[in-house]
């Protein structure tokens, strides 16, 4: 078994381009522009400079003394929360915005759930002088008011999406509809490793810097590769980003943590890999939460960034091939980890990240004292404090 990418835009059977005919030429053009850009030293240099001087890369690898003591093994934190705008999302947004500029596109479309991808996109658009339109579910706008404010502050237009579940799923559909209408002058910056080819591979490649840095940092700091690499999964971009460099390292376990919401048995969760079946949504064949009639279930997670009924097709492939291990954590356990980790390490993690933290906590003792664990801290939790306070867990 190899986990190599089939260049047809498929990962095994998963992926593809299940989109309206109108978008096929735009996807063809994107594929070509992306390949050209990667071969162009000027693009590679411009991206590298932007990531270093504007985003703040490389991101640090921190130790976590109290958390490690609790787990019984050294846990290392890949600090994507320290990036400009506070999450890994900007790695991809910056790269795609530079690509859009290279393609002569003046208008950028994005969807957002928790708002982190929307903020990252609004940020790079301000920086590069591009018009920015962000689609966001009305329910998510309520949950993430701070991020809505940040996007508007930086000049983006935030369009509330009132259809369906009013969350990330419907925001993505609305962004696709915009692109079908404006594809000749607009570029759609998808925020995760989802959507039609070439997006899952391209976003993975732009996020793979997380794993490349972390792998080198682990070798330098721990003197060995991690036993396990752990990351949360909604669409799966921070997980694919940190996993990718480790895929050929067969001895390294790759663990993706989905949102179990109110519990897998309740049906109110976002665990597409654990509970879903293969189907087509938003341009790709992957695992989906769907009923027997092929209608998509509304997902649920306390974390807006994980609240999505699908998952990137490469994760579907890694699951079926056995290379990836996929588990899930409930809302309550993630909230508990959110508080505990904040107190223990002085790092307020995003609620998304808190799912991965919780899974490691629940598995304390699973690793020998000399087996390091690498955790992707996908983002910081400032955006979540108002929501958590509202839930009464920690008084504001």
């Amino acid at each position: 078994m190899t986990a190599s990418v089939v260049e047809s835009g498929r990962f095994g059977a998963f992926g593809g381009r299940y989109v309206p005919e109108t978008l096929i030429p735009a996807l063809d053009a994107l594929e070509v522009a992306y390949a050209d850009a990667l071969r162009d030293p000027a693009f590679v240099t411009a991206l590298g400079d932007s990531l270093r001087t504007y985003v703040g890369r490389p991101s640090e690898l921190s130790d976590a003394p109290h958390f490690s003591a609790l787990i019984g093994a050294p846990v290392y934190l890949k600090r994507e929360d320290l990036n400009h705008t506070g999450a890994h999302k900007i790695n991809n947004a910056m790269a795609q915005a530079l690509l859009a500029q290279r393609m002569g596109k003046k208008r950028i479309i994005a969807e957002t759930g928790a708002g982190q991808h929307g903020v990252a996109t609004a940020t790079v658009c301000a920086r590069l002088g591009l018009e920015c339109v962000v689609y966001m579910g009305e329910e998510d706008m309520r949950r993430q008011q701070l991020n809505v404010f940040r996007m508007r502050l930086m000049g983006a237009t935030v369009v509330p999406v009132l259809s369906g579940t009013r969350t990330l799923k419907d925001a993505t559909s609305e962004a696709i509809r915009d692109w079908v209408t404006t594809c000749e002058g607009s570029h759609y910056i998808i925020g995760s490793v989802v959507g039609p080819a070439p997006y899952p591979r391209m976003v993975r490649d732009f996020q793979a810097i997380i794993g490349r840095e972390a792998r080198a940092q682990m070798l330098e700091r721990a003197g060995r590769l991690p036993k396990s690499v752990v990351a949360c999964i909604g669409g799966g971009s921070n997980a694919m980003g940190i996993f990718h460099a480790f895929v050929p390292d067969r001895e390294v376990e790759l663990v993706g943590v989905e949102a179990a919401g109110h519990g897998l048995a309740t049906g109110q969760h976002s665990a597409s890999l654990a509970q879903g079946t293969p189907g087509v949504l938003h341009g790709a064949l992957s695992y989906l939460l769907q009923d027997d009639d092929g209608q998509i279930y509304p997902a649920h997670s306390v974390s807006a960034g994980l609240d999505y009924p699908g998952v990137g097709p490469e994760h579907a492939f890694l699951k079926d091939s056995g290379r990836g291990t996929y588990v899930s954590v409930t809302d309550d356990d993630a909230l508990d980890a959110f508080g505990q980790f904040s107190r223990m390490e002085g790092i307020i993690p995003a609620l998304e990240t808190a799912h991965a933290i919780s899974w490691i906590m629940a598995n304390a003792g699973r690793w020998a004292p000399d087996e390091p664990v690498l955790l992707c801290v996908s983002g910081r939790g400032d955006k979540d404090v108002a929501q958590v306070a509202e839930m009464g867990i920690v008084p504001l």
Partner: protein
Amino acid sequence: MITQRFDSLRAAGRRALVCYATAGHPDRARSLALLQGLEAAGADVLEVGVPFSDPVADGPVIQSSSQQALAHGMTFEGALELITEAKLSVPVVLFSYLNPIVAAGPDALHRARAAGAHGVLVTDLPVGEDPEREAWFGAGPLDFVRLVAPTTPRDRMGLIATHGRGFVYLISRLGVTGMQDEISTSLPSTLATLREVCTLPICVGFGISTPAHARQVGALADGIVVGSAIVRAAERSVDEAVALTRSLRAALDEG
């Protein structure tokens, strides 16, 4: 049956009126009355929408009708029952997305044919993107109607034409389904290019909502498809949708 319909229209020098309705919208009883009313008002082909929860190719009107139909419990099977019960004499084309059709199982197309459908159109399965599933549609008992977009290059138009059966559905403009004030100015040249590479009848849809549009596009194409305007009229009453269809028929026949 779709081909025969277009042959006889061509022989009579007439243009096809293709009317869309979402199965189960506004509710089951009115949906049934609407299908029969559209036929009586002069529709040549009926497109019956099998609702999908996430219709990315559709604008607000058909999105809303799909949500309402799903809320009333409409399914692929339910749409087939509706078609059977309507006892239509015009050809019926199922209009949907890949996911609900695949979920209906390997014999879904045969069940659809037995229920009285003649064609199938899948908005999110472009030519060449999934040969295995395309072969399933192509080898089945229904005419597999393919779509051409204004962005489709000439070579690809030819490829699409060779993969389609029944007719080719030309999308009139960039965007999703929905009404508009004016027909795209690029339509005549797109149609002319498509004609060069396509021997199937060509029907133009997306944004055709008034008798004036029907006349204008009818002068260029073999047929027109009207969807959102009918669905929006049906929101108010079946009679209104039927009256609109009559006016479209009259405009198309005046030429």
